């Protein structure tokens, strides 16, 4: 067994080892595709969202995994002080479909902000909303109560 002195300058083997480690880290834990683009999109939305409450992602609840048709569906829950928003993203005929639910139940406008523009819908009295045929890509959801009370809330930019 050999000992290496930490005081020595890096030699060729150190550098080779680091390069190799860099390759391995990239395989084991790759930086997600499009993360920089999503971050940039989040930055462009930041001005609009200055006064908003940011929702944070919660762990996906187990009940979302309930059948074969949900294999390709993702359920993501976001929460913050005023409300919790759960959305299920599933592949649709033309793009993706979002089924959403706001708790506590309330009527609100739901804007899906995308780099190419936005799509608006409203939730019903139960707090449910559906948006169909959304193109894939980065998006952030912004919800406002239709009665104008309370702060607007926004989700982080997610990949649909």
């Amino acid at each position, binding site marked *: *067994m*050999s*000992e*290496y*002195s*930490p*005081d*020595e300058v*890096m030699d060729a*083997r*150190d550098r*080779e*080892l*680091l*390069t*190799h*480690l*860099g*390759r*391995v*880290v*990239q*395989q*084991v*834990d790759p*930086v*997600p595709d499009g*993360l*920089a683009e*999503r*971050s*940039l999109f*989040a*930055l462009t939305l*930041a001005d609009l969202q*200055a006064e908003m409450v*940011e929702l*944070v*992602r919660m*762990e996906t609840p187990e009940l979302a995994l309930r059948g074969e048709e949900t294999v390709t569906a993702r359920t993501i829950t976001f929460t913050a002080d005023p409300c919790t928003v759960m959305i299920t993203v599933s592949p649709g005929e033309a793009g993706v479909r979002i089924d959403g639910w706001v708790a506590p139940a309330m009527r609100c406008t739901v804007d899906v902000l995308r780099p190419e523009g936005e799509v608006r819908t409203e939730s019903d009295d139960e707090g449910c909303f559906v948006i169909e045929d959304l193109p894939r890509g980065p998006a952030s959801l912004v919800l406002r109560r239709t009665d104008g009370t309370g702060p607007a809330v926004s989700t*982080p*930019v997610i990949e649909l």
Partner: protein
Amino acid sequence: MNRQAMTGHTGDTTLGDRAALALLAYREGRTAPLEDFVHEATPLLWHVVRGQGVPREDAEDVVQGVWLSFVRHTGTIREPEALLAWLLVSARRAAWLAVRRQRGDQAHTRELPDDTDEAGELPSPSPGPEAEVLTHDRDSRLWQVFLRLPARCQQILRFVASADRPDYRAIAEVTGMKVTAVGVTRGRCLAKLRTLLDQDERWEWA
């Protein structure tokens, strides 16, 4: 590969310099340098956050959140040269908070890592099933041995191995160490890794 590397713009500037230039340009209303910088620094933030033990799904949001808090603080960052350090510290703290939130009450009594000297208490990034992606025996050997290093060594080496030309100051920001200790620690961690590999009879040096 990032844009800087592709276009060869890196030249003599460090990542810290480019961060400062991006901030100055952004304040003048020019966003292109910031876009380049976001592309270049996002992988680094990712590895800082993951190195603190944040799960992949949450790490995405943490990285976005760091960039968001940056644009909200552009007015208050006095020295543009300090931007890179500011981002790395923000990433480290946000990652720590995310881990704490996830672990719930159990972690509430813990302190921020730089409030203690107990670097060993940092959550170690879990090996997880990700390691199965390693199809080459040499790769998985190296990864297995790497995971046996102390958490702080893993953080440093992960950062050094992922960054193009990491400077000691950046590593110091990430790990909360003093700049003077970084070189020694990096050397110590590399030495430890090499010793462990030597002890592994299945490992062969190239």
